[in-house]
């Protein structure tokens, strides 16, 4: 540069580097621009981007299993899922306490629904078992109350469990609760666990804490007078199966030590019930290793299961594998969606190009009338237009009637134009046509007629002039129209839903089904994420092959 006097960065008049002063001068402009878009940005962020992001997050999120069954899933990690046998007693014991809590909070059905996506029957298994867990608890409650009638009373329990201590156990139990239930259990429970009791009877203290938190904060009752639930008695029974605990209880002198010692004196009256058998009694499916496999596979907080499901795969004991042939639908649907969108885009080009050409070359008045005709469908509800196609396309519909009347089609062999791919293609081509015509028109409008004249004056026939000179210049319009139509149709929902039948539905119909009917939002989110990714990849490919600079929506 000849106007720099020395090497180094160019300086402004006041000696600051030119780049700095330029940036300062432009900052105001940038802030202004940002302020202008801020309201829309905020609106879109809050109402659109964040909800969609959380929705997409659901495609991998899977906390429900470990949150609902925290101890059971922890215990399950030691189980060998290839053994072909149900897990051992400790898993079932953890399951009992987890499921008992979940049933009280009515969270077990949600988990059942979630696992039912992976293995049918799980939903009812959880529902019926949750309902009957009380009976299992009563196996201990009844003998304990017979032996020590004072333990029938909530006041006795409250006095026995209360004392002095750090209350760490209670807070740990509260954290588990909070993972499981949608709302959080904050606030004062009104209980300080005795450290001595908590150390001596760990299961009982944990179960009592669970009950106390739930009773005080969810049911909002006075825990000092209420009777604890059955699981607490079961916990006490389990604690007392340990001879060291029994010895410690016999040496204990805290409140109501005498009632506990009554129980230890009559241990022979306690049941020797195993939870594994109890669950098997509730439902023999609990001994089915496949149920436990499913629970174990889906116990991590994040899972690829929804995505595997969305591409017709599933998680087996040895990792991902294809689903059985008769359960595969999504890949077919994805391919069909892409293929039919291509067909629709192609027919939109074929039908729209001549119309756009006419629009661009007619005198303004006539072109305006034609433009209104093109836009007319836009002003009619999408639903109405699609329903109109239903009237036209059905076997007793207008088109078939005319063809039969004209004799082109035999009355017995009426064309099947609806509830299949044909119907979807016909109706969607009509509906998306304006999105092809408008960009084409706006590009063609900028091609001066002198190019065609020049080509002809140079000796080109009408066709050569069109194909060599006019068409290449209209390609950006075709590109823009194709992108619009293709991307719109790939995510189209209403029209395929109404005229598509089973052969003509798109992937979006399946997404809608999982959102509103089967309520498998995780799968819907995974399908949606894949669809989004496919569109982005296609867009990228398009950019690589055609070049996005070659897309013009106008002028």
């Amino acid at each position: 540069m000849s106007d720099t006097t020395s090497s180094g960065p160019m300086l402004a008049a006041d000696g600051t580097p030119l780049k700095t002063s330029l940036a300062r001068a432009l900052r105001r402009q940038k802030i202004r621009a940002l302020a202008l878009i801020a309201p829309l940005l905020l609106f879109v962020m809050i109402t659109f981007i964040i909800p969609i992001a959380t929705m997409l997050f659901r495609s991998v999120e899977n906390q429900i299993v470990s949150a609902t069954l925290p101890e059971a899933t922890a215990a399950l990690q030691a189980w060998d899922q290839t053994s072909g046998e149900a897990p051992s007693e400790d898993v079932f014991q953890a399951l009992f306490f987890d499921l008992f809590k979940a049933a009280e909070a009515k969270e077990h059905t949600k988990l059942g629904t979630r696992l039912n996506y992976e293995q049918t029957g799980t939903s009812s298994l959880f529902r019926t078992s949750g309902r009957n867990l009380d009976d299992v608890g009563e196996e201990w409650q009844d003998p304990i109350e017979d032996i020590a009638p004072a333990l029938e009373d909530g006041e006795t329990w409250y006095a026995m469990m209360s004392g002095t201590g750090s209350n760490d156990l209670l807070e740990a139990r509260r954290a588990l609760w909070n993972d499981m239930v949608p709302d959080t259990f904050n606030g004062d429970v009104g209980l300080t666990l005795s450290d001595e009791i908590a150390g001596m009877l760990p299961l009982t203290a944990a179960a009592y804490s669970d009950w106390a938190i739930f009773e005080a904060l969810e049911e909002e009752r006075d825990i000092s007078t209420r009777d604890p639930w059955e699981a607490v008695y079961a916990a006490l029974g389990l604690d007392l199966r340990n001879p060291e605990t029994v010895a410690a209880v016999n040496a204990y002198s805290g409140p109501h030590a005498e009632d506990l010692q009554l129980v230890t004196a009559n241990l022979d009256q306690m049941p020797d019930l195993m939870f594994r058998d109890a669950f098997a009694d509730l439902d023999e499916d609990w001994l089915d290793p496949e149920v436990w496999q499913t629970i174990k596979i889906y116990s991590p907080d994040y899972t690829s299961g929804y995505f595997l499901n969305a591409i017709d795969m599933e998680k087996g004991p040895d990792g991902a594998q294809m689903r059985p042939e008769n359960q595969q639908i999504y890949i077919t649907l994805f391919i069909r969606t892409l293929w039919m969108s291509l067909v629709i885009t192609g027919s939109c080009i074929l039908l729209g190009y001549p119309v756009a050409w006419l629009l661009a070359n007619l005198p303004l008045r006539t072109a305006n009338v034609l433009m209104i005709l093109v836009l007319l469908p836009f002003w009619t509800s999408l639903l109405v237009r699609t329903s109109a196609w239903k009237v036209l396309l059905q076997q007793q519909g207008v088109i078939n009637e005319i063809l039969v009347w004209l004799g082109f089609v035999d009355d017995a062999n009426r064309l099947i134009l609806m509830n299949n791919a044909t119907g979807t293609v016909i109706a969607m081509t009509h509906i998306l046509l304006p999105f092809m015509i408008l960009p084409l028109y706006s590009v063609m409008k900028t091609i001066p007629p002198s190019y065609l004249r020049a080509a002809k004056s140079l000796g080109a026939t009408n066709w050569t002039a069109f194909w060599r000179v006019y068409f290449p210049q209209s390609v950006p319009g075709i590109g823009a129209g194709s992108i619009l139509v293709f991307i719109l149709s790939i995510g189209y929902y209403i029209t395929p839903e109404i005229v598509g039948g089973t052969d003509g539905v798109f992937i979006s119909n399946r997404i809608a089904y999982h959102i509103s009917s089967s309520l498998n939002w995780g799968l819907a989110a995974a399908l949606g994420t894949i669809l989004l990714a496919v569109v982005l990849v296609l867009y990228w490919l398009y950019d690589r092959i055609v070049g996005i600079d070659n897309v013009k929506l106008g002028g």
Partner: protein
Amino acid sequence: MTDLANDQSFVKFDRVQKSYDGENLVVKDLNLAMPKGEFLTMLGPSGSGKTTCLMMLAGFETATHGEILLDGKPINNIPPHKRGIGMVFQNYALFPHMTVAENLAFPLEVRKLDKSVREEKVKRALDMVQMGAFGGRRPAQLSGGQQQRIALARALVFEPELVLMDEPLGALDKQLREHMQFEITRLAHDLGITTVYVTHDQTEALTMSDRVAVFEDGRIQQLAPPDTLYEEPENSFVAQFIGENNTLEGVVTEMKGDGLCEVKLDGGEIIYAKPVNVTKAGDRTRVSIRPERVEMNKERLQEGAHTLKAEVLEFIYMGDIFRTRLRVAGNEEFVVKTRNAPDQPRLTPGTQLEIGWLPEDCRALDA
């Protein structure tokens, strides 16, 4: 070369009429004959029908009535691409998606010439317009003047005998335009091409053409070589349109035998003028005199000149010339141009003086 009666005419318009809406004629009874090799300019204000004539010749418009002949053959029913006429468009119409070389090869390709012949001809055409190094560029990468050259080369590359140009220099700046005017005429004469050139710029028309056809209201008002057109306009439209002109309105009082007539101006002054399209005493007339033929220095007036009183209204210094606006016989737009010479006074507004001119330079035209 300018013989109108030449029956060997290469391009001929025979009583051609054109109407777009069936109510108004855009071109009214056009008759024109051009010999081979002539450079003819159609000059006129916009809407005068000149471009329509060009488009009819090129085949993009059809004549409503009459016959257009090319080399003796009627071409009314021949489509444009078979007429073999080269054309240069106002905005050049270079195909933006092709390189310069592809643009030039296009007319050769559609004529199915061999690749080697094509390349040879493209190269020669590019060299002809001194653009040999630009074959690989896109039109958008060229300047306006370069695009103009390419458009010219493309119109000439297939060696047409007739080339049409529709205001080809309209988008260029003044200097470039003057340069291109020279180049186009040189090429046209060197190659012996018959050229029809449309413009609304009279300087362009005067400097480039063998003959100029002045269009107005769908008719040719005058068809003549540039000097004749300037010095001997046949009617007041041509006089007004070509160059600058002073007009004084009046009535013919006497036709004299010596090729002059006596005109009584509306202000009462009597002057003599050369009758052009006035025929008898009593005709209203518009007397036209070129600004550079008026003399403001009484001492330099030639023998036989007559004088009028004038008052200076405005003096404009234009570098090579002075332009003085005067009030003469009630006309406040009377302009005199004088050379910027050392002895030429710079007049101040309000100066009273006498001006004069030769009656032969003064033409009595239709009113």
